[in-house]
């Protein structure tokens, strides 16, 4: 019979049984009566011969039981009753576990949204990102269109490569313009991703891959919902994109947000149709590295295999184009690990280790605390256990009973922890958003709960239950009933055993919290280092506004006039010290890179990276940003487009290209080895350009007047509060052209605190800091608890010792000797673990932080002092024992 059916049909089975037994007895009685025995005697005889009816019924029912499950539920019910009886204990344990599990849940769901959740496309594991890496440069860069074509052609036997480039513009429907953050995609973008339209169609092969093709727009689902109110009839509609007529052809599926991590793109345009204009060198110039390359690799091609295949292609191309492919290495990275950008791939292991390891450590400390509490409770329940064993309860049954108590506690803790995790995520999510959002890209880090998070929490709960319960459970299973019952008080029987377990708990707790604290202070030191790193410019008091008049159809001449008028208007405002224009924004938008050829040196210098980044700036840029000039002169108005081209290099580039020589007057080219050449007129101080890095980066500046760009950022330095400048600048913009879109507007301080700046360091430091404090609090409670219990156990003994003449200092020695040994051992273990861990996460630690002995010493002494205090309070209680009281107590 089916077991489950039995479980539900049991009531009927039992009724049948009772009926049957009743019938049996009646039949017997009737037979006896028929043989002439009086009914009363017959009834008695029948019952005698049958045996104990109740017992028989019980034994018969037992045949139907599912013993393990039923006793498990019985255990749980019993455990729930026990826990309800001591609400204080239950609350403390559940809160402690909730803290440990909550921290893990929250952090794991962030990690899940970041690294584990795949792209919402079929077979997402086949999608990989290709990142170009230059010699002498750790950062990864993008690809030019000719590069892309070469790779696509050469790699088409094992992959389908596709590419996109981000853009920000405006989309107007019936004269109503909206900002539009888009990806300009190759024609195979959607077919390689294998996604299907929500409505309409997506771009198809050969569509819009040539300059001048008609412009098509595929809308993102949320943009369509927001700006087209989800109108199905929008397919085929004419709109204006950046002032050019375009046709809406379809909408992407609801859960597809583009291949740029954490952002929700508004739409997709064909790359070909977008890049127009006779002067557009995008199609031919290998130096215009603007494309992010992705590939769908054939099924079964692993990352390693893909890497070796791509290496072959790279080598072949290096032979074909020795000039531009020189020293280039292309790394193949799983799409997940290249979020938000390929260069993080090398950080990912340390970050994941940090994010998983530290919270796990907090959970371990919480578990140790709870295990200790349970052990103490087990001690006070020793009599109960002894009586149960004496009455025939099997030790395994007792162990199961204690384990089901810890399971129940872990489940309550897990439920509470999950709630705490969700709350923590809400809070931290809004914090994260405020730091990372830009004006134009809809930010979308998906840290929702899904089955992975649930599974993680459930695993944490089960591990917790076993970890927390096993030790105390084994201890109660080992109870020797005769010893426990003979002892005059339950405490006496405990003196011999169990001290070992508690000592180990203290060692582990102290070690764990020391590791947390050391890592936290190392990360804090690293953050302080990052905050005080030489930026090369002065960020405070500067507002940065990004503009692109080309988006609303301005030509070169009109753009120049626009910027000149804007600059003049802003400069004449009260409180403005200076206003300048530049192309790139340090630590936010690094600008272009180029390969450099030094005049008179046909070969690249050995230290020279393949490409060097540069900025286009106007003469007042250095003044506004307060970038000190070390040698030579600044750009001047005389450096016009008809004057000889000039450049300002930074110290590192000067030392790389002309080691030991005076860089002033030297000439280099970023076009070809035969020129045209640019003369160096000045040397600027080194600074930070892409993201905070302790290594000096080569960099140079070219005058905007000799190198046109429509996209520029306006820097305004003012003595007024810089936050209030935004509106003032906007008013001036509206006065010149009410339709001019602002791409981004933020203070340079915000930029420095942002993603390219100190944000990651601050995040890591505050995460570790919070965890360190939680771990410290838990460990202190643990040490305090253990020593208190120890003192409580030995009160009697201390009384006797004092009665026979021991002084307070003897008692202090006695108790602290016993309680401090595990603390010291814990400190030692903690230091060793922290050194190992710090080595593993070296990438996140800037400066000397990793090996800073001062940090180790200060934190260790601090923890030792606090642990001493935690154990001194109960020890003092022992020293104050009144011998008379202590001895009378028993």
């Amino acid at each position: 019979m089916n077991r489950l059916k039995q479980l539900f049909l049991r009531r009927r089975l039992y009724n049948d049984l009772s009926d049957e037994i009743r019938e049996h007895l009646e039949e017997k009685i009737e037979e006896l009566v028929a043989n002439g025995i009086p009914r009363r005697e017959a009834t008695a005889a029948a019952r005698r011969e049958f045996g104990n009816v109740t017992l028989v019924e019980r034994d018969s029912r037992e045949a139907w039981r599912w013993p393990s499950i039923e006793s498990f539920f019985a255990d749980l019910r019993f455990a729930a009753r026990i826990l309800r009886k001591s609400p204080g204990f239950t609350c403390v344990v559940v809160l402690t576990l909730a803290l440990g599990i909550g921290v893990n849940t929250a952090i794991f769901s962030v990690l899940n949204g970041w690294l584990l959740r795949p792209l919402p496309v079929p077979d997402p594991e086949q999608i990989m990102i290709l990142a170009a890496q230059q010699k002498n440069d750790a950062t990864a860069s993008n690809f030019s269109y000719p590069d892309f074509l070469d790779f696509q052609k050469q790699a088409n036997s094992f992959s389908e490569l596709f590419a996109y480039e981000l853009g920000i513009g405006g989309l107007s429907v019936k004269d109503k313009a909206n900002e539009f953050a888009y990806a300009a995609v190759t024609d195979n973008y959607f077919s390689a991703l294998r996604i299907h339209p929500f409505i309409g169609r997506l771009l198809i092969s050969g569509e819009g891959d040539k300059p001048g093709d008609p412009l098509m727009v595929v809308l993102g689902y949320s943009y369509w919902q927001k700006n087209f109110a989800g109108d199905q009839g929008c397919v085929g509609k004419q709109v204006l994109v950046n002032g050019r007529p375009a046709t809406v052809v379809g909408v992407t599926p609801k859960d597809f947000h583009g291949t740029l991590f954490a952002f929700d793109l508004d739409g997709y345009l064909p790359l070909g149709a977008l890049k127009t204009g006779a002067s557009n060198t995008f199609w031919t110039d290998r130096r215009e590295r603007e494309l992010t390359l992705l590939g769908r690799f054939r099924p079964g091609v692993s990352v390693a295999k893909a890497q070796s295949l791509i290496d072959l292609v790279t080598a072949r191309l290096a032979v074909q184009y020795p000039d531009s492919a020189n020293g280039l290495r292309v790394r193949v990275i799983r799409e997940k690990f290249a979020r938000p950008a390929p260069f993080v791939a090398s950080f990912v292991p340390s970050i994941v280790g940090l994010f998983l390891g530290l919270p796990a450590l907090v959970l371990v400390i919480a578990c140790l605390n709870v295990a200790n509490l349970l052990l103490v409770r087990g001690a006070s329940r020793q009599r109960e256990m002894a009586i149960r064993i004496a009455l025939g309860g099997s030790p395994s049954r007792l162990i199961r009973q204690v384990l089901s108590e810890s399971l129940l506690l872990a489940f309550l803790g897990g439920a509470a922890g999950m709630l705490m995790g969700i709350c923590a995520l809400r809070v931290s999510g809004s914090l994260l958003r405020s730091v990372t959002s830009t004006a134009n890209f809809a930010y979308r880090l998906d840290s929702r709960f899904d089955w992975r998070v649930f599974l993680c929490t459930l695993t944490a709960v089960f591990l917790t239950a076993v970890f927390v319960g096993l030790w105390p459970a084994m201890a109660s299973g080992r109870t020797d009933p005769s010893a426990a019952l003979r002892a005059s008080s339950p405490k006496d029987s405990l003196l011999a055993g169990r001290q070992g377990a508690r000592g180990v708990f203290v060692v582990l707790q102290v070690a764990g919290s020391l590791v947390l604290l050391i890592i936290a202070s190392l990360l804090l030191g690293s953050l302080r280092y990052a905050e005080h790193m030489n930026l090369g410019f002065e960020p405070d008091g500067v507002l940065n506004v990004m503009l692109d008049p080309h988006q609303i159809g301005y030509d070169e001449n009109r753009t120049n006039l626009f910027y000149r008028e804007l600059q003049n208007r802003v400069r004449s405002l009260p409180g403005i010290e200076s206003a300048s224009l530049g192309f790139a924004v340090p630590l936010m938008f690094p600008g272009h890179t180029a390969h450099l050829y030094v005049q008179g040196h046909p070969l690249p210098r050995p230290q020279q990276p393949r490409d060097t980044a540069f900025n286009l700036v106007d003469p007042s840029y250095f003044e506004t940003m307060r970038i000190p000039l070390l040698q030579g002169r600044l750009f001047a108005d005389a450096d016009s487009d008809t004057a000889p081209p000039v450049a300002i290099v930074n110290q590192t580039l000067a030392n790389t290209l002309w080691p030991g020589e005076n860089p002033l007057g030297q000439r280099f080219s970023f076009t070809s080895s035969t020129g045209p050449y640019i003369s160096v007129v000045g040397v600027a101080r080194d600074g930070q350009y892409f993201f905070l890095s302790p290594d000096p980066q080569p960099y140079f500046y070219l005058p905007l007047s000799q190198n046109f760009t429509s996209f520029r950022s306006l820097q305004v330095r003012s003595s007024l509060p810089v936050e209030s400048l935004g509106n003032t600048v906007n008013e001036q913009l509206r006065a010149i052209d009410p339709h001019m879109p602002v791409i981004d507007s933020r203070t340079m301080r915000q930029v420095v605190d942002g993603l390219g700046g100190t944000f990651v360091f601050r995040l890591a430091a505050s995460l570790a800091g919070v965890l360190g404090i939680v771990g410290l609090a838990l460990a202190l409670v643990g040490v305090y608890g253990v020593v208190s219990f120890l003192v409580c156990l030995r009160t009697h003994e201390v009384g006797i010792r004092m009665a026979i003449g021991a002084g307070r200092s003897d008692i202090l020695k006695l108790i602290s000797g016993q309680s401090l040994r595990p603390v010291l051992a814990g400190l030692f273990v903690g230091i060793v673990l922290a050194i190992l861990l710090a080595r593993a996460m070296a990438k996140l630690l800037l400066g000397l932080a990793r090996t800073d002995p001062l940090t180790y010493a200060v934190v260790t002494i601090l923890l030792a002092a606090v642990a001493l205090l935690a154990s001194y309070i109960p020890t003092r209680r022992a020293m104050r024992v009144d011998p008379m009281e202590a001895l009378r107590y028993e």
Partner: protein
Amino acid sequence: MKKPEQRDLFPGALEMMILRTLKRQPLHGYALVQHIKRTSNDLLQIEEGSLYPALQRLLKEDLVKAEWSISSTNRRVRIYKLTAAGARHLERQVSSFEKMLEGITRVLARGES
């Protein structure tokens, strides 16, 4: 803890006897116990009640099945029937029992001589 009513029988003996009896004909509980008692010439002192836990175990293992019906004496009775699995089980049990018995007999015979 052994149950007193099983003290004189080895585990499974009662079940084996029930199965063997049911193989001859389906019976209800009372008839079954009377038959076993009668056939064993009352040598086996079993309590009538001890039959029921054994019957429930056999039911659970699907070795017998039970159905309510009305007896010839117009009494509501639950008739037990041997299932195919029960028949196979009985065969195995009997053969292993006979082996065991043979072994015991030999040892006892050796002890006497």
